[in-house]
């Protein structure tokens, strides 16, 4: 497993997203604008997605499709997934997080899953 480099923009966005909804679980995808290949992963951007009913399917599907299209337009690729659980004491990945991360890992080697601790 290679090195993961997190850009400032991605970090701040994730943090602010978690800040904006302190009482909800939030999730989102991590993007990279560097081309595929190479050992490490370079996360340059992220897209915050949901802050309610994370395990429900339709909106997640929709959002991921939209992100896909946008990435194609802006020459980025989805390299990971982040989630911040609502509870301070529990930052283990939920089943839905694992599922989405698996899906992403299928498409991209060196995929990253970040669990944000509040």
């Amino acid at each position, binding site marked *: 497993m290679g090195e993961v480099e997190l850009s400032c923009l991605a970090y701040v966005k994730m943090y602010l997203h978690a800040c*904006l909804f302190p009482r909800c679980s939030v999730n989102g995808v991590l993007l990279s604008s560097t081309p595929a290949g190479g050992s490490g992963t370079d996360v340059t951007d992220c897209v915050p997605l949901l802050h309610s009913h994370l395990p429900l399917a339709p909106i997640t599907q929709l959002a991921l499709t939209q992100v896909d299209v946008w990435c194609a337009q802006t020459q980025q690729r989805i390299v990971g997934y982040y989630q911040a659980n609502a509870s301070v004491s529990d930052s283990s990945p939920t089943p839905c997080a694992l599922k989405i991360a698996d899906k992403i890992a299928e498409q991209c080697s060196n995929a990253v899953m970040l669990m944000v601790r509040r």
Partner: protein
Amino acid sequence: MASVSELYDVTWEEMRDKLRKWREDNYRNSEQIVDVGEELINEHASKLGDDIWIIYEQVMVAALDCSRDDLAWSCLQELKRQFPGSHRVKRLAGMRLEALERYEDANKLYEAILQEDPTNTAARKRKIAILKAQGKSTEAIRELNEYLEQFVGDQEAWHELSELYINEHEPRQVNLRLISQWVDLTALKRDGGSGLSPFAPVPGCALKSPSSPIVFEASPEMADSLIQTGCWMTTTEAAKCQTLLEPYPPLSPFVTWNHSLIGFLPKPSYLWSYAALPPFPLISQLLGALSGRQEYGKKIILFVSLFIQHNCLGLRVSGADLWARLLGRLGRKSAASGMLTTRELPQLGSQEKVVALSKTDQEKIASELMMTNPHNHLYCEQYAEVKYTQGGMENLELSRKYFAQALKLNNRNMRALFGLYMSASHIAASPKVSAKVKKDNVKYAAWAATQINRAYQLAGRGTKDAKCSVKAVEEMLESMQITMS
């Protein structure tokens, strides 16, 4: 630091009225409540009279939310002094212990309350919230189910149960939620909004140290830009916020405190914009027709209206016993108000064929949900999402119907629009359906796609980089179309 009254140039009466409004609407804007309430308590206590006690209670809960233990403690002391031995005050003391993560002590307190008064629902709810805060969701679910067997009409509890089930990935059980005793006429004016209520746990650890919480000092512009970049991707989320009539998330009796404290940011104002609900054409027509009939209570009118709506939706009503229960409840209520007797009710019932479904409790209760709370488009849409997640052709069809219903109730609900598009596309794409069903669903999907495109065009007017988002949505819709054929 300038006081609230100086900053906003308000008098103490206005502050008191604002607190009352927040209390009545059950908002969870704790930082504001603490600011305003603290000043009222410190400066204007003598002028408030008897209002002060309820303000102490409100401010105390808000202080727990903001980890202001000093303020919470002083409010609690005042209340204890005035109302010694009161269960309500004991419950507040328990909540403070919970916020300090002293769950065993809190539990003991609630046990004591329940021993003296076994019907005290607030103490039972707090015990369930403790289980939730400790992460024991299965026990919490079990306790909540037991509670709901006794108190079937408690809408907040049903909602909480559904949230717990969703997080446990039990979509089938989610149908159990949202039973409500009866539709309140006020529901016509506002959505419950509880679909978005944060039932999150609270930070116990922060309260242990009285030092100030970590507050991320971000400028409003930064927060705004986050929303701009993030939110067009989740326009559905934003749209859902905008369809909420309430500017703040509601405070539930199940509030817990193990969430983090970061995040007391200045909130971007447009997230809290009010959206005017379009008139429900059917209900308004009906109300118009029946308004002349004085002998019918408002609730009967709603009851009739929801029948007609359900006829349109082709929903089947479940068993006769359910029916009888509802009628009985109706009869009791109207007997109390002297408006209508049960004898006249069967006439309403005969309009709809009662078909006993051989499904499980969940489906029965889901139908009861739709009968008792038909106006809440958020509940409708959330139910549709659950059905979609469950998968399977029947569930997909149901989800499409419910998305359509949600749209009927509020045609600005973007999530429902997208949901309709997706469920219709999936049905049309499935090889097992007949040609006619396929054609119909292609039509629905096409209609939904044009509506979505139109909405994005309208939303994107005026901002340059929205063009990118509009294009992305178009391409996304096209790509989903490709999978259909």
